[in-house]
């Protein structure tokens, strides 16, 4: 749902001179399918072994009991992510300005809660207005 919602604001984001990028630990063969399925204008980047997510300090390890539950659903992270340790990033959306400074950070450990893309767009507009 996050991907589709970002796609909905993509043209507005581009009109502001900004870009969207999605970072996931999933291997390229899965990101390729995902990209095609949602017909995305922006790239999905594979963060193998969560190197970048670690630098943003977003990585956690799935507890054993949850790992077992997902396995019972037939979902195996080690296959999708080549991640035998079952680590994941917490969902997060950042806005980074041209100097590399973080201007908005939405991090939520509850993956059923997300910032509205409209709010991200509003923050980008403010950033763009301040730069002009």
């Amino acid at each position: 749902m996050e991907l589709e919602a970002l796609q909905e604001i993509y043209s507005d984001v581009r009109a502001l001179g900004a870009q969207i990028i999605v970072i996931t630990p999933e291997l390229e063969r899965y990101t390729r399918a995902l990209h095609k399925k949602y017909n995305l204008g922006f790239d999905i980047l594979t963060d193998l072994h969560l190197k970048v997510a670690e630098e943003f300090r977003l990585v956690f390890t799935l507890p054993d009991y949850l790992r077992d539950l997902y396995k019972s659903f037939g979902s195996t992270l080690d296959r999708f992510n080549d991640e035998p340790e079952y680590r994941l990033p917490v969902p997060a959306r950042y806005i980074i300005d041209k100097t590399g400074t973080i201007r908005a950070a939405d991090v939520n450990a509850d993956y059923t809660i997300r910032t509205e893309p409209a709010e991200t767009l509003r923050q980008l507009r403010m950033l763009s207005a301040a730069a002009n």
Partner: protein
Amino acid sequence: MASLQRRLDEFKKSFESGAPPYNAPREAIEIMHRATTELKATGIEGRALKVGEHAPGFALFNQDHVQISSADLLNQGPLVVSFFRGHW
């Protein structure tokens, strides 16, 4: 199109009802709630990089195996970065 949070809320309601198409067992839902509560309690949200901090640079492969660098993107303008756990 409904807001993202409304869509997420509707999905959650449908999933947690235990009804089709997901047929999620009650125990599974409780396990997922426990995991979220415990993850929040680790303080990970507070440790993550924050507004005002410098974002680490990166160069990663996209879905077409083309390497994309944050420096190239930032040369063109601001960047929205979304960390996504995956499709599963």
